[in-house]
């Protein structure tokens, strides 16, 4: 067996550095296995999040050789020879070592106006498979927050975090927008208060998604089109004039709670 060099970022909110650790390599391991062996034998206090170890919970996100990956789904034998660098996600504040403060995402989740269906008919709603599949793609999201981590709108611009929901929540808004039963109209909200226009479709989020959700093509672009339609479309404007129905403002959408 050969030795591995694991170059791991150690530190806290006050700063830190890359530290090299040497450990024997073992067959068929993923990065998280090596981290666990290091904890058990050399660095008992090495901080790292994990839960399911099967790519289903999205806890163990980190940057492996600079690429955001789930540590539990990254096989060691697929990484290039030489030292393996593991650093925490860069967009979020450091707690310690590989653990970051991802509370930004939980705050954004609170700002999503809830799903608002009509009352349930006897025996449940009827929906066709083809109609639920669009939303199901987005509901595969395991909230690893790697799309948020790579999105340059917040990765390089801390100030945008107050008014930018980020790719994870754009797919949530898209899911609700496309949900066969939802009655709220969040298009003005997502345009005006969630910073949808700041996304310039570089597709970094789609590239890192471990669930292979087509975030940009299937969620963000359609959402942009719908939001713009709602805002500028002269036909829709005329239709509203005739029917007397008003489009929902951002505040009206945000206030809608079941």
């Amino acid at each position: 067996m050969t030795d591995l060099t694991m170059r791991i970022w150690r530190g806290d909110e006050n700063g830190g550095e890359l530290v090299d650790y040497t450990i024997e390599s073992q067959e068929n391991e993923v990065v998280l296995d090596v981290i666990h062996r290091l904890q058990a034998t050399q660095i008992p206090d090495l901080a790292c999040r994990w839960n399911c170890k099967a790519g289903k919970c999205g806890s163990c996100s980190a940057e492996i050789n600079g690429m955001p990956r789930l540590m539990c789904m990254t096989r060691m034998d697929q990484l290039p020879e030489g030292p393996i660098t593991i650093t925490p996600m860069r967009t979020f504040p450091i707690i310690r070592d590989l653990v970051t403060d991802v509370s930004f995402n939980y705050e954004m989740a609170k700002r999503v106006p809830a799903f608002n269906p009509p009352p349930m008919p006897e025996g449940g709603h009827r929906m066709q498979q083809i109609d639920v599949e669009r939303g199901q793609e987005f509901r595969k999201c395991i909230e690893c927050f790697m799309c948020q981590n790579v999105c340059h709108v917040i990765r390089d611009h801390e100030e945008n975090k107050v008014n930018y929901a980020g790719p994870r929540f754009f797919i949530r808004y898209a899911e609700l927008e496309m949900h066969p039963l939802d009655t709220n109209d969040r298009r003005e909200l997502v345009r005006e208060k969630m910073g949808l226009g700041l996304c310039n479709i570089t597709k970094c989020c789609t590239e890192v998604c471990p669930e292979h959700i087509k975030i940009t093509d299937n969620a963000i672009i359609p959402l942009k089109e719908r939001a713009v339609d709602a805002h500028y479309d002269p036909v829709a404007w005329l239709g509203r004039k005739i029917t007397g129905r008003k489009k929902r403002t951002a505040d009206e959408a945000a206030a809608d709670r079941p």
Partner: protein
Amino acid sequence: MADYEHHSYDVIIIGAGGAGLRAAIEAKQRGLKVAIICKSLLGKAHTVMAEGGVAAAMGNVYEEDNWQVHFRDTMRGGKMLNNWRMAQLHAQESPDRVLELEQWGALFDRTKDGKITQRDFGGHRYARLAHVGDRTGLELIRTLQQKAVSMDIDVFMECKILRLLRDGQGAISGAVGYWRPTGEFITFSAKSVILATGGVGKSWKYTSNSWEGTGDGHAMAMWAGADLIDMECIQFHPTGMVWPLSVRGILVTEGVRGDGGVLRNSENKRFMFDYIAEMFKAETASSEEEADKWYDDHTAGRRPPELLPRDEVARAINSEVKAGRGSPHGGVFLDIASRRSAEFIRRRLPSMYHQFMELAGVDITATPMEVGPTCHYIMGGVRVDADTAATAIPGLFAAGEVAGGMHGSNRLGGNSLSDLIVFGRRAGMGAADYIEGRSGDVQLDAAQVQAIIDESLVPFSREEGENPYDIQRDLQELMQSNVGIIRTGSELDEAVAKLEELKERANNVIVKGNTRVYNPAWNLATDLPAMLTVSTCAALGAQARKESRGGHTREDFPKPDAAFGKVNMVLSQENGGGMNAPVKVDPQPILEMPDDLKVLFEEAK
């Protein structure tokens, strides 16, 4: 004197999986001040790992299905050790709970006429599992999480509870814990506490459970004076991954078999036909031809033996491997590749496809999987009242995997997600009713709080001692080899003795590195007392139950014994319990089923 922050609530819920979230929603809807406390981030609980579906007799695929059939399947699957009232409520209420999830935003797979579709699973007579591909648990937790967030329920994430607190009259009064990200201590006063902490699997070497499955709720309940029952009844899921070694134990959904996958040994034989127990002969196919007809039309043939309850299948796999007919890495083959199209497999089992491709480099649409039993679920747990989820301690409730009784000695697949939402809701109602009937403020005993905090800090002050990871590893080895899928008296005696040695070592644990900030060694040191407590309960229960039943198999008592079938193994500690206090084992009669339900079992003979 350590400083700590303090919070006051009507109800605190420990655990944020399906049961905890559902309980919180219910209590909040009753107008109470509610907090959820969880060891990980919100939405990461073990519920996300549930794959196949949620069992509910909705009758969307087979109109013949109803709660009585589901009830009967559940009781027979549990080898009649179940709390009949829990099994009844569960079968009656789960369809409404599933529809409620849809009303909260869940998107289940559909039938052609637009209803929620249902799939076949082991031990269920009809296709009964509402599902979303093979990621149903994720759908359930996300739906409940989003509902809870929209209701402004307070969530304390990455917060570990160390002990429960009781007042002078013996009623529950709150809990003490610490924030994992800062290591700072925190106390809660609460009129009621709902335990929803999940399972215990982390004490075994090969398990589908995450690091959180350390039995915190089981242990804290018993330390506080509640009873545990049937802790020997542990489900080894028949199909966990066996290779690569680093992922050994990770779950392979029963949906693979429900959708047509079969088990073969190294001689390419569908061996399950050799393992059909007398109890299931009447409703199980006796030939491959008959079994294969059943998938398309359940009236054309009887069920394939691959879909027997999990305990039966796990034992059969174990026997094949022992007889030298296993796969290269010590499992058997689970083959769906030769039986269904690649397109079908990718659509119905997307996450299994992904999991094997990424972790093992195996394409399950072309090659059979290697699988073997993995420690998955504990049927035993805190003894509760079926209707209210109340424990013996006033104000303490338990729901989900931490509660015992619902599943008897073996749980059917799909009955866990439904258990969470049925009894999560009932625990929320039970707590709310209890609070309406109580009066007076809640007071915490500062000295008691201080003692708990001090005890948790001792590992930092030792000069020398044991590495917590070493103790965990030795515990996992011991439980795997001595309290595993097949047990025997002498090995159980040895386990009980060795657990005492491990407790001695845990009393001398040391945490190096001076920080409490997100320190996994300290976190593990504080999990060890619960892990050792539940392991002791499992070993003692297994020692006392001198029969084989469901998830408890004794080599020296290979048959069920009617006398043991009438008792729960009740485990308890005298006042002032803890890891080091002795555990009493006491067989007590199970709840007697009323005659109008007994009829369901007689008719079927």
